[in-house]
């Protein structure tokens, strides 16, 4: 029986309100004020995925030529373009991986390994949604994705971004229980924040970004390419300035079927050139940010949140 809205949670319950001002100061390694990371989504979308009653993967009857083929463009054409660009600007990618891609396109995985990129889990396929999964089904899916990454990349993932941003009430709890340390699923802050999970693990959110996510910018918000480049620069300017007070995080999540199209590469490259042209920028990966925060600021943040919560 479908529950009424009143029977569902009114908020996620993963964090307490914590004002941006007067937090314990964060300083990133070597005195950097901004931790910068790029998160290429390396995804596999199925041409004929099974039905999920809560969400249709493709808007039209099968075969979904338009939707499927442009996403395949990312794998055939796009990733290599972005790899070349990130190499040029000395950035290690943190890839959000549909782990089935390890089987479909191991060549791409090998190229990421050669570049010592970080792998984090983005589920198995981006056409299999969490909606409607039982807890044990979701745990099995997440566990399988973790094990696949360990097998192909040599190391368990530290981070998770739910496939197609589809969640259950326990997604973050399950990932923390399976050994993860950070989530990219929450957009509530410009700094890492402690995340409450039911098992009480030390678990955090590392800012990803919805607004600077190329697919959100290009497909949902229909932003012009050069404006997207300007948005990235403007976002950087503000977070860099504020980082002098306390370290901030900036992420550019990408999808190479969008950002690596020929008419969009110039704007993206200019933005990367601009950002990496600044000193005191820590160009790093999601895991490095999470590790550093957990080791140096997590406890102070927890204490600050607790003290401010009391008033």
């Amino acid at each position, binding site marked *: 029986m*479908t*529950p009424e809205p009143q*029977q*569902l*949670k009114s908020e996620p319950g993963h964090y307490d309100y914590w004002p941006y001002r007067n937090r314990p100061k964060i300083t990133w390694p070597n005195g950097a004020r901004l931790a910068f990371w790029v998160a290429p989504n390396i995804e*596999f979308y*199925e*041409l*004929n995925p*099974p*039905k999920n*009653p*809560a969400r249709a993967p493709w808007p*039209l*009857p*099968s*075969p979904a*030529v*338009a939707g*499927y*083929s*442009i*996403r*395949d*463009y990312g*794998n*055939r*054409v796009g990733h*290599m*373009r972005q790899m070349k660009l990130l190499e040029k600007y000395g950035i290690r990618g943190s890839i959000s991986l549909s782990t*089935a891609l390890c*089987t*479909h*396109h*191991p*060549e*791409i995985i090998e190229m990421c390994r050669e570049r010592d990129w970080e792998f984090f889990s983005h589920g198995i*396929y981006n056409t*299999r949604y969490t*909606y*409607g999964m*039982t*807890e044990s*089904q979701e745990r*099995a*899916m997440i566990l399988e994705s973790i094990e696949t990454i360990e097998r192909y990349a040599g190391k368990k993932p530290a981070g998770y971004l739910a496939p197609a941003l589809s969640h*259950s*009430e326990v997604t973050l709890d399950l990932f923390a229980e399976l050994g993860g340390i950070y989530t990219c699923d929450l957009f509530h802050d410009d700094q890492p924040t402690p995340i409450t999970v039911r098992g009480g693990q030390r678990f955090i959110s590392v800012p990803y970004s919805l607004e600077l996510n190329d697919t959100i910018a290009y497909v949902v918000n*229909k932003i*012009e*390419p*050069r404006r997207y480049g300007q948005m990235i620069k403007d976002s950087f300017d503000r977070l860099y300035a504020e980082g002098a007070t306390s370290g901030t995080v900036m992420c550019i999540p990408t999808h190479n079927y*969008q950002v690596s*199209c*020929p*008419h*969009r*590469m*110039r*704007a993206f490259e200019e933005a990367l050139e601009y950002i990496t042209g600044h000193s005191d920028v820590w160009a790093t990966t999601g895991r490095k940010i999470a590790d550093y925060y957990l080791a140096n600021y997590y406890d102070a943040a927890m204490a600050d949140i607790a003290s401010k919560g009391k008033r």
Partner: protein
Amino acid sequence: MTTSPHPPLDDDYQQYPQRQYGMDHSRYEWSMLTDRKPVIWPNGKTLAVWVNVSVEHFPLNPIGKPIKLPGNMTMPYPDLRHFTLRDYGNRVGIYRFFDALDKHGVTPTIAMNTCLVERYPQLLDAVIARHDEIIGHSWSMDTAHAGGMDEAIEADLIKRSLDVLRGKTKQPVNGWLSPGKSESANTPDLLKANGVDYFCDWVNDDMPYPFHTKHGDIIAMPLSTELEDRFVVMDNFHSEQSWAEQVIDACDFLLAESQTQGGRILSVSLHPWVMGQPHRIKHVEAVLQYIMSKPDVWSASAGEICAAWQTAQIKSEKQLNTSIGG
């Protein structure tokens, strides 16, 4: 205990029968662009420019089955506003295009709804007189090829569209662009069976590649949707100026890539009812002028580009055989 408003899933939701090396279907092989042999276009050019002009008819009384394609009527019948604005392209915009193309020495490819060759013989004459390559574009913008379509109906639609187009134009017509780039699972097979050598619906590559059908391979030609005038200006609401910048940025990027990775294709898809408007045509002119000012550009029709690509494949295979034999 968690609560979910979503229906439970079937057990097969966590089965992955198509998880295998390569694609999750058998229509084409998995291949990264950077792994392929570099292609050089005729006369040592590195960037082929393919300007596709879609000449379309949107009926006033669309059936909209199996799907309604973008650009069709949206207002209650009779939707004079959208009918006439689309028709504007065939009466006015197309002639502005012809002038702009000729001024800058651009060879276009014309994708034409077959119903237009009967409806507008004067337009047909104008197109024929130019000797531009004409490719199939189904019967009208209300004959969508899409999943759920009866195969016999689609077979007849494709055959009729090609027969009439070939008969009236006296051209071989061996290229095809499905309206809205929409297909049924049978479309590629039916196209190949009807003598079509290349089609332009799949946007997963920047270069041609072989696509399997029941009757042998058909070539998939890369006609970008992301850079298409209608998509950029009408769907994404970008300015005309921005569209022009996007094409120019793509031209620069592909030219640079072609210097190190071999020949590339810049595909520019235009609609007379969109870019043929008085306030937009100057941006088409600016784009064509910019592209044609580049010495490494080869302006050619889709069929010429496809043929040159096939020749390059045969050459590289011969080289391979020679080196193995030697």
